[in-house]
Every structure is written in C-alpha cells, then in structure tokens.
C-alpha cells in the first residue's frame, strides 16, 4: 500500500451510514441529474420554476415519497413490497368508512388507519420471515388480498362526503408551507436518523448485505426483517391517508401502480434491489425526479403518450449517468 489518501472515502464507498448530505451531492450523479432535469424545465417553461409550481411538484411527489420510505427500508433488507398501493387503497376505504359510516372521530380514525397499515405490514413480515415465503410472492399475494378487501368492504363503491375537519390533513399549512411538504420533511428526517444513526438502521443494512453473517453476528434477523415490513405497511397507510385527504374521497381502485412508482423512486435513488446499499435521501430525490418529470412535461403540454416515452428515456439516462459517475 504505497499511496493511501483520503480520496478513497470520497469516491469509493457508497453506503448511506457514513455520509452527510454534502457528500451525497458530490458523490451521486443522480442528484446532479435531478438538478439538470430541473434546470432544463426552468429554462424551457416560464411557469415551471415558480413558488407555486415547485410546491406543486413536491406535493405531487409527496404520496409516493412517503410510501417509498417504507419501500426503501424493505429493499435495504433485500426484500420488496408490492402490496403498498393496495394497502393504501384499503386504508383509504377503511378510513372513509370509519369516518363517514361509523362516525369515528377523525383523530381516532387516523390512528386506527395507521395501526391497520402496520398490522398488514406485520403480517407480510411474519409470512416472509417466519414462513419463508419469498417477499415477492407474499406481497404480491397481499397486493391481491388488500385490493380485494378494499373492494369488498364497501361493495366496490367509493366513499365521499368526508368530514370537513379531515380535510385539514392536506389543506393546512405551517408558516405558509403546505403541510404535505412538512410531512415529507419530517418523516424523511426521522427515517434518515433511524437508518444512519440508530442500531436498528445498522441491522437493516447488515441483513441486506449478508443475512447469514448477520445471524452469526447475533442479529435477530427475522425480527428486524419483520420490522421493515411494518414500516412499509405503516408508510403505505400514511400514503393512503394522504391520498384520501388530497382527493377528499376514498376509492377502492386508487393507488394501483403506486408500488412500481415507489420501487422506482427507491432504485432511481441508488438503493440496490439486492439490499444492503443505498440511502433514504436518494429515495427522496428519486421520487422528486418522477414527480418533476410528470409535472414538467405536463406544464410543457407534451402530449400524454409522448410524456410516457420521455419519462422512460429520462429515467434510464439519469441512472446511466449516475452509474457512470460512480464507477
């Protein structure tokens, strides 16, 4: 080892636990990619880079961003959760029924919704960890079960006429900042600390990197894995609540495709599907990239079909440059 220097730490590793926000900005092509996409839209359209539209973008990205938090945790453990979209829909309908048909007070209904989400996640985690059914199958099954459940509990009908007080959840703002942006900021900060500064976070990364070594290192692998799915169920429920509040309406068919969007946000953000590597901040950027592309192209009035083509191309290219930069 003749010439050791510090550049190694800067370029070599790409694990979340060790990095500050600043490290990321310089490390990751994807952050840069995001800025470039943003810059292009700002130049091309004058109505893109305005306070109201930027806030629009974050709000439009926020539901996927929140759901993708749990997805990140699951993917870090080398798992996957395909059921998040259906869970969101199920919780949405359940919440609607609780508030409208059962007359349960809004705060209690919200609390119960989150608990339900966590319980569904617990079931996923339990079947995966203790039943040894692959995560893909378990959560695919749950995707179907929760969707069927969402449809069945209200006979396929949506729930509307939600209480006014419920609307506050999406319409409120704090110091002029829309509350959805606050949710994103708060939960990302919390989970960033959990994943990088807390024991549980270490375990989550460790399991994803080498689950056998984790076992022999004394980690309760099954319990930690299960906890990941609880997080996922919980954040999916939160996404379902946000969705309901945003539309002021609960529909059993909503949220389909959320799972792919959430996974895409995670993977665009640099988290490996093979587990153990990645960062929650990357996920936020991933979600924002998706949201920005959709918003920007629609502001530019690109015809719908071409929007899809462009989004597909841009995602691939962005990740391509990200990889180039890191190699």
């Amino acid at each position, binding site marked *: *080892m*003749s010439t050791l220097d510090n550049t190694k730490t800067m370029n070599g590793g790409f*694990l979340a636990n*060790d990095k500050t926000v600043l490290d990321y900005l310089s490390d990751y092509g994807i952050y840069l990619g995001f800025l470039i996409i943003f810059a292009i839209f700002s130049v091309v359209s004058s109505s893109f880079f305005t306070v109201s539209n930027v806030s629009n973008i974050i709000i439009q990205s926020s539901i996927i961003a929140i759901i993708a938090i749990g997805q990140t945790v699951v993917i870090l453990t080398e798992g996957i959760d395909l059921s998040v979209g259906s869970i969101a829909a199920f919780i949405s309908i359940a919440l609607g029924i609780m508030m409208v048909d059962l007359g349960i007070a809004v705060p209690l209904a919200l609390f119960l919704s989150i608990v339900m989400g966590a319980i569904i996640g617990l079931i996923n985690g339990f079947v995966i960890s203790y039943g040894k059914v692959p995560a893909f199958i378990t959560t695919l099954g749950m995707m179907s079960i929760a969707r069927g459940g969402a449809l069945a509990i209200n006979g396929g009908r949506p729930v509307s006429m939600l209480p006014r007080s419920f609307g506050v959840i999406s319409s409120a703002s704090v110091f002029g900042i829309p509350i959805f942006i606050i949710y994103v900021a708060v939960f990302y900060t919390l989970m960033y600390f959990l994943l990088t500064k807390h*024991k549980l976070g270490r375990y989550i990364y*460790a399991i994803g990197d080498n689950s056998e*070594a984790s076992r022999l290192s004394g980690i309760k692998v099954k319990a930690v894995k299960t906890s990941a799915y609880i997080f996922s169920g919980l954040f999916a429920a939160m996404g379902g609540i946000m969705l309901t509040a945003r539309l002021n309406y609960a529909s059993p068919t909503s949220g389909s495709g959320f799972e792919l969007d959430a996974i895409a946000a995670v993977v665009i953000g640099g988290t490996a599907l093979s587990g153990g590597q990645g960062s929650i901040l990357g996920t936020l950027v991933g979600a924002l990239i998706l949201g920005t592309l959709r918003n920007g192209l629609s502001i530019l009035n690109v015809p719908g079909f071409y929007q899809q083509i462009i989004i597909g191309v841009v995602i691939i290219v962005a990740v391509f440059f990200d990889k180039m930069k890191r190699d």
Partner: protein
Amino acid sequence: MSQLLEMKNITKIFPGVKALDKVNLNLRSGKTHILLGENGAGKSTLIKVLSGAHQPESGEIYINGEKAVIASPSDAFKYGISVIYQEFQLAPNLTIYENIFLGRELTNSFNFINKRKSIVKTKEMMDFVGLDITPGTLVKDLTIAEKQMVEITKALVFDSDIIVFDEPTATLTDKETKRLFEIIHQLEEEGIGIIYISHRLEEFKEVGEKCTILRDGKYIDTVELKETSKEELVNLMTGRKINRDKKRCDICSPDKIVLKVENLNYKDKVKGVSFHLCEKEILGVSGLVGAGRTELVKTLIGEYSKDSGKTYLNSQEIEFKSPADAIKNNLFYLSEDRKDEGLFLGHSIRNNITISSLKRVTNKGVLKRKHEEQICDDLIKNLNIKTPNMHTEALTLSGGNQQKVVIAKGLCRQAQIYIFDEPTRGIDVGAKEEIYEIMDQLIQDGSSIIMISSDLPELLRISDRIMVMADGSLVDTFKNTKNLSQQKILSAAVGGGKK
C-alpha cells in the same frame, strides 16, 4: 532455458491504493515459483492481472518470449493460464461437474452438453486429486476444503501451461496438502509452470525452488529457497524480525470450568460429543476436513438445532436457541467462512467491526459515532489491518486483511468465551504471531478460547489442550505438553475416522 512467463513492471492502482508498483515475475516451465508477501502485499492482485480479471495501469506480460495481451479471463485461457483464486469462484447452485467444465463445456457440434462424458471425466479427475464425492453434488453443499479441492480439480481438467495456486492450502489439512504437493510435482514433470502463493513457510521447500517476495506492492527480491532460511524470508517480507518459538504451557485448572457440553448430538454430523472448557484456557480442536468440528460448534451456539445434549455455562444449564442467544451470553463464534458467514463485504470496516457490539457504542440505540470510531481505530491498529481508513468497504481488502476484520469483530464484542474457527486462514506469518499474542492477552484478561484449526503447528503453538474429532465424534483429548507431537494428533484423527 527460456522463460515461460515474464511479467514486467506491472503497476495496478485502485482508488487510493497502489496495489502493485512495477512488479516483476519470471516463471520457467516445469518449475514452481513461490510468491510471498504480507497480507495486502499485492500477490492476489498480480495474479488477477495475469488472469485478465484486472487490467494493469502499466506493464507487460510475455509468454514464451512473446508479448501477450490479456484483456479478459477468456484471453488468459487462450494463453493456457489457469488460476485457482484465493476467494473461490464457484457457482454454488451448480453441481461439481458443471463447475469443473464451466466456460469450457464438453459439447456436440450444436453446443448441446455431453453430460455423461462430463461426469465421467470429472470423476476421473476427482479421483486423481483425491476428492471422494459424487460429481453431481451441488457445490453449495460442500465444506470449504472440499470447495478448494473442486477449484483445484477445475484448474487441472484443462491442458494449461501455467497454473496459479493462490493460497490453496489455507483451508486444507495435511492429508489434502500432501496430495496437492504430489500433484504439483507431477505437473512440473509435465512441463507446466506453476505459481504458488502461501503463508505457510514450512511448505515452501517441499514445493518450489524460487521465491519472489513482495512488500507493500513493490517487488523486493527473488531468492533461491535452498539458500534462504525461514527467518530471512520473514525478514524480506516484513522488514523486521519475528519470534516464532513461543509455546503456551499453562495448563488449565479444572476447578474453574466455564463451559461444559454433555452428549451433544446433531443428525449424523455430531455424535455424542462431551467436553469442557476452563477459565483462561485455549482448547484446540483438531481433525481432518469434514470431521465435524464446525458442525459441533455451530450446534453448540444454536445455529443448528441439536437433537440432544446439554450445555452448562458457568455451571448453569443453558439453552442457546440461536447465535444471538449465545452472543447475549458472551459466547462468540467466528466463522471459518469469512465471505459467506463472516463479512459484510459491501460495508465499511467500521460497520463490520462493531456489528455484534452495538450496545457498546450506542446510547438508547443511538450510535455514538466518536466512541465507535475510537474503538475501531484501536482495533485496526492492534491487528494491523492494512486499509486507507475504517470507512473502506471490506470487499476491497486483501484476503488476509478481511480475515483480520472478522477477528476484530470478535474482539470488539469482549466476550467471555470465543470460538475461533480457522481464524488464521490466509493470514501471514507475522500477523499470525500478532494474533496469537492477542489471544494470549484475551486469556490473561479472563476469557477462554476454543480454537478450531487445521494448522497443527499452530494448535501446538497455542493450545492448552487439544481435542481431536473424527467423523462427528470426539476421539481423544490431549494435554499440550512438550512431548505431544503432530504425529500423535494426526494418527488419532485418522484412526478415529476409521472406527
């Protein structure tokens, strides 16, 4: 006589590390050339340059006097180069014979595989190397030693001009090692040139004549082994002197038994084993490959669920349901399989070291970063782990340094009882001594150690007692007195196997 292989001025740079700095290596046909150097000296990297796995920044390779361009592993095959890598390169879910012919299948003209012929030829070669398993066995079901033998078989199946062995004996016991040397000599007779990497200096004179020494990525010297003593070799390699003749002798006092195991059974892998471990004792465990040593301790710690048996920890009966249980009770097992069971290859050295001891470095679950880094710093220094810093990914370390990280993980935990499974696998002589000293220190601090090793001199060097296993049973236990010889242990191991 002309040179079979010349590597000239090879330089290879990894981010932050100059792994090779203008290194030269010459090899003649029919000869075995030994490559020696401390952990991280650059041996494996040099080999990977030869095999096309790495592209060097500069330097040339000549084969039979002609310049060779090796841009990929398949190029290397074309030049007749076969490599047995230090970290196995086998596909675990393929069978032995599929692995043996991987990349060079026996096919008909439509590229359909001739399975029968592949199996027959594999069986033939396995008999030749002395590997007695069905060729249809999946590689993942093999022990480390068996995998090593499969790697060797794989290299021998094809007509190569140059064969490289990167630490083949690190995981082998004497029996397999002997057979390997016979094979090597046979290959020499066929005119094949061999590069041989090992940290077992004792072997060298048996294998080769010349030895090239690397230190810190630099070429140091090439010496004739006949004219060079072990001490000189160590000197060249480390740049310092090492005292290698200590021997532990304080036999334990049986009144202070910390661990007692009674009649442990697990399938047909562990058969009615009973033993005890005293305070401040190092209990060596010897046996041939597959004797069931690893299975014994894995059953003990609850990684495998035992069929019967009792465990007493500090005179209390206790039941370890999982490794987590054992660790919670301060009994720590370090696996022999660093890649699959020991390391988090994609994670930093720091994260690897503290993963089992996060209690030590957290406050209500929240990491105390400074404290953690302090501990890691100390361990890295203590074990002399060669790395730019503690944030480096384990993946990029040399084999021996990876092994040290595994040991550091154990030390960090500060357990009462350690079970080391082949802890010095792939570790250089100098570092081995350092590890023995650390073990001594652990004992003095009140810990006890069970040490599984296939390296008999090592067991004799460090154990208080040595128990010998064969075929899942405990055959005998010896006090490690002056007159305990390698031969005595070996014959117990072999004899027991025949029971």
